[in-house]
């Protein structure tokens, strides 16, 4: 029980901080709710990227720094292919491309580095990141591209009766949330109900034991990197449809790192919850904590959301290194 106290304290601070603007009357409830929703939507995107991390980490113990680059690559592929064919066909072709990419990564990067320590693999995925960033922009071009999802742009007014002035919701945000929920459900089914999913969980649990009962490690890795690639396509399409496809996606996707720290490296629900916490947290901090900070310290503008996620993850590392839902196994020195 004693070890939970700091975590509980930290979480209560977060919860109190969430409702404080409302309690202090700093904002009308409608506006607060809009900020909350905006944060949740950003959180869904972080969750999707973090999901890719968690899948790969669970199955191969590799900390995949390249997930952000994969999202960018997938989004670029879909955006450019969609110029020549319908969107669904572009996504299908992109899926094939990501599967080929997974095979190449497994063959060229992972297999020669098998049994290396985690840090070497982390650096290798850094190399993959750079390669994919350069390769993607050489092949697909480096301008800003749009992905047309065919969803009406103008926001919808909802809850007019409850809040004064109602709340504006973007339809593509709702679609993104629905797709994310669907994706997670499909993944959960895949992991729990299929033979391949069982093999994946076995590999995640114990590489050697899995190998000894005849599960082919190499094929499992290809599968899991392909699944991560498909998750990257989903994240990239949603993200690109919202903000346009450009290089900065690769950087924003780095935010998935604090998300997995928060949620736990090995937990799919952790990735979702962590993403939502960080999405809401940083939007709330930017909107409600930023202006007072700027005023108090005479700063040259806000931008708290650039570091909020990382510093929150740092605090969590200090009090609970395994994350909210992770397995409690960590090398202490």
């Amino acid at each position, binding site marked *: 029980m004693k070890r939970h106290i700091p975590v509980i304290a930290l979480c209560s601070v977060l919860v109190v901080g969430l409702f404080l603007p409302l309690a202090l009357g700093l904002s009308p409830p409608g506006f607060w709710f809009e900020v909350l929703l905006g944060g949740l939507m950003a959180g869904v995107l972080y969750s999707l990227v973090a999901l890719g991390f968690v899948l790969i980490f669970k199955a191969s113990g590799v*900390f995949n720094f390249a997930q952000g680059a994969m999202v960018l690559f997938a989004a670029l592929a879909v955006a450019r292919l969609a110029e020549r064919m319908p969107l669904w066909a572009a996504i299908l072709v992109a899926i094939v491309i990501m599967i080929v990419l997974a095979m190449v990564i497994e063959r*060229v*990067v992972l297999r*020669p*580095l098998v049994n*290396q*320590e*985690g*840090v*070497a693999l*982390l*650096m*290798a995925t*850094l*190399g*993959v*990141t*750079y*390669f*994919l*960033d*350069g*390769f993607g*922009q*050489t092949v697909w071009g*480096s301008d800003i591209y749009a992905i047309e999802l065919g969803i009406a742009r103008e926001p919808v007014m909802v809850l007019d009766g409850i809040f004064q002035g109602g709340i504006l919701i973007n339809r593509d945000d709702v679609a993104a949330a629905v797709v994310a929920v669907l994706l997670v459900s499909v993944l959960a089914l895949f992991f729990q109900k299929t033979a391949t999913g069982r093999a994946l969980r076995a590999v995640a649990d114990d590489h050697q034991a899995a190998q000894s009962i005849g599960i082919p490690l190499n094929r499992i890795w290809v599968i899991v990197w392909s699944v991560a690639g498909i998750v990257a396509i989903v994240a990239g399409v949603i993200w690109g449809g919202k903000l346009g496809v450009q290089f900065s996606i690769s*950087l924003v996707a*780095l935010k998935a*790192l*604090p998300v997995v*720290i928060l949620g736990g*490296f090995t937990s799919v629900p952790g990735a979702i919850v962590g993403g939502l916490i960080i999405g809401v947290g940083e939007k709330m901090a930017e909107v409600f904590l930023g202006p007072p900070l700027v005023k108090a*310290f*005479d*700063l*040259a*503008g*806000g*931008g*708290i959301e*650039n*570091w909020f996620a*990382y*510093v929150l*993850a*740092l605090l969590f*590392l*200090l009090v609970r*290194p395994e994350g909210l839902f992770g397995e409690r196994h*960590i*090398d*202490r*020195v």
Partner: protein
Amino acid sequence: MLYRENGQFKSTYRADQQMLPVLQDRVFMLALVAFAFVVVPFFASNYLFLSMLIPFLILALAAIGLNLLVGYCGQISIGHAAFMAVGAYAAYNLVLRVPAMNFLVVLVLAGLIAAAVGMLFGIPSLRIKGLYLAVATLAAQFFIDWIFARVKWFTDYSHSGSVSTAPVELFGWRIDTPAEKYLFLLAVLIVFTVLAKNLVRGHIGRAWMATRDMDVAAEVIGIRPVYAKLSAFAVSSFYCGVAGALWGFIHLGSWEPLAFNLTLSLNLLFMIIIGGMGSILGSYFGAAFIVVLPILLNQIPQWLGVPISTSTASHLEFMIFGALIVLFLIVEPHGLARLWAIGKEKLRLWPFPH
């Protein structure tokens, strides 16, 4: 034939413990230093100084700093450009607020301030390692970036947030031509290289290496992990702080808030992966590689008569860096420094095969 240690007997402890035990190594090193000090300033063009030699010298210093932490102590950091930023802004403010201060004192103080900040962000390393530490240092990178971009005091309330410095003056010597900058940097780098080399040979360096190889065993034989890790963070950030101050004052002259961003951090990491982790010499190789490759990539297509656009060249650069990192991790995890060592071994036997 020429490179042989036969007949060189060590009869004193001093002789046994010197930095370069082989006579030919000493001669080569002296010749190299003499060449760098005397010959290069006469023959190098301003372009060579400004675009290659000066960045190389400063980045080599920063790479040594990062190598002390990652290569020798085994603690990964992807936020070391942030400590360079701390050094640069500390030096800027010291010069601004105490104009009479000697630049060498400024450098050391800037390094010490960077060391203090580095230790602060190194504290998580006492509980976590590897991947987790990577995220903790990433937090340092983004947080420090933000601090210097937003807190006006650090940039002396300049409107754009960028700062500019006057040419450095040292004991009445005004360092403003490229050749003078080069000589000054070379002298600084040599001093810090010798310091680092001795540090890693001594008990501190051995404590770091023991911690890197197996932390539990290190603790069992009486090494305090707290001291080992925090001292590695401190020394490493000190080096990067000094390098950052030099980068700002000597190389850039004036810089924007995001001059020390994540890309620079990753480049530092690539330098030590390609050059060789756990090797001072490797830091030099890596820095040279990272400085020269982009320039070559811009030049070679022109020589071949197939000009490529700058954006294509920069994408190619990304691809080549990425591919090389993977290649080095697979084929030669100890980097160019290891290739150099293999070459030396071969040279000892040459012209015989065994």
